[in-house]
């Protein structure tokens, strides 16, 4: 007999329907800043390649790493084709107590309310991903609650072949996530750390107020040898105790999710228009850049080099001497440009980017 309706008793309802993956860019296929950056380790904790994924580091780390997003190496049993590759290029065999090196995605509170953390109805967290290395190693996934200073960690094993990691973390009835656009949860993959973070006993069974020494106990050091490599992909965080198949979104959807946090404006060809503007005076121009996606918060404006921009007014042009963020609504940003005297007050014009240059808006966590 043909079925005419779904038997609801057969539908798994403990997990999320619709958008299941709370992480963004889990296959590392979006990299607006750069695909590859070398020498990571000495420099700042920031976003280098894959959108939304920050390399967080501290202490006097002498190890160096090359980070490559969008690497076309992925497990055949997965539904993705790209991964993130980390390669150690300078070893650090004398680990200082305060050192750490972490791959982390921070998640804003607005996107975490379904966990009901801090209530009697709190839900479990499940993190899953595929990973491989150059040999055997042990690393840690930590969930860190920024709002309440609580955390829990679990180890996972890496071999020289792709394997799927599925880690379910218990619910936490203490400490709610803020229902706002601030960083509430870090999903952190600890790859290297000193005794300040490894000297205790891994806090793996229940959420607790953070004790630094219990955050990454038992991990290997990714920086122990220049032979070390790590590939990771299909990273997913979902509600409940079941790791479902990695959620596939279209490229435009994935890009738009990333653009809430970072946007780059650069030309497809040798030069392209960024925005229209008008002359307030002969040396002052104002323009409004309407954004393809509303940013999380008023963004920081950056650019490659002033010499990469040309401000056109009528049939004349000038190189900007300053490009300044005058304020943002989240949907748009007002940009103030100064140039040498050019054109007359009231004339319209436009700002062009050339030479492979770019303008960026950063609203990352």
């Amino acid at each position, binding site marked *: 007999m043909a079925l005419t309706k779904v038997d609801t008793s057969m539908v798994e309802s403990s997990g999320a329907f619709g958008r299941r993956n709370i992480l963004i860019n889990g296959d590392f296929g979006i990299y607006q800043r750069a695909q590859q950056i070398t020498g990571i380790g000495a420099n700042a904790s920031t976003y280098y390649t894959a959108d939304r994924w920050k390399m967080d580091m501290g202490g006097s780390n002498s190890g160096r790493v090359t980070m490559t997003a969008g690497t076309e190496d992925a497990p055949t049993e997965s539904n993705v084709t790209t991964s993130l590759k980390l390669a150690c290029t300078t070893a650090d065999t004398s680990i200082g107590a305060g050192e750490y090196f972490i791959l982390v995605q921070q998640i804003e509170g607005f996107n975490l309310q379904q966990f009901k953390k801090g209530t009697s109805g709190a839900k479990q967290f499940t993190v899953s991903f595929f990973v491989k290395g150059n040999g055997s190693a042990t690393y840690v996934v930590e969930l860190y609650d920024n709002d309440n200073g609580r955390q829990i960690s679990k180890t996972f094993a890496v071999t020289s072949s792709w394997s799927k990691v599925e880690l379910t973390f218990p619910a936490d009835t203490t400490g709610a996530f803020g229902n706002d656009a601030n960083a509430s949860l870090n999903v952190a993959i600890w790859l290297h750390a000193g005794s300040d973070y490894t000297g205790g006993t891994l806090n793996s069974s229940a959420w607790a107020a953070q004790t630094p020494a219990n955050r990454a106990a038992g991990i290997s050091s990714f920086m122990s040898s220049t032979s070390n490599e790590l590939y990771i992909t299909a990273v997913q965080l979902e509600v409940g105790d079941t790791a479902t198949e990695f959620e596939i979104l279209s490229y435009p959807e994935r890009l738009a999710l990333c653009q809430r946090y970072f946007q780059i404006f650069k030309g497809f060809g040798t030069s392209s228009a960024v925005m229209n503007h008008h002359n307030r005076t002969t040396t002052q121009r104002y323009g409004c850049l309407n954004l393809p996606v509303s940013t999380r918060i008023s963004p920081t404006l950056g650019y490659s080099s002033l010499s990469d921009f040309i401000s056109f007014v009528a049939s004349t042009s000038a190189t900007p001497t300053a490009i300044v963020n005058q304020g943002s609504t989240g949907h748009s940003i007002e940009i*103030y440009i100064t140039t040498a005297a050019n054109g007359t007050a009231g004339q319209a014009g436009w700002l062009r980017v050339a030479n492979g240059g770019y303008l960026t808006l950063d609203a990352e966590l």
Partner: protein
Amino acid sequence: MEKMNISSAKYTKDVISDEVCSIIAVIDGLTLSVPIAEGNRHYDEIKRQVDAGTLTIEEAD
């Protein structure tokens, strides 16, 4: 665990209203125009370093 190297910071004013609207800062070697907005990671770090006494923001011209 945010860590930024901020080598300079200077307020900028809106030439129309004459009110401070942003901070031009050199952060990790990049010149950035940072809004006065809590929750912006660059502004939060500038504020943290100012509060810690390790950074001074120059007045606007």
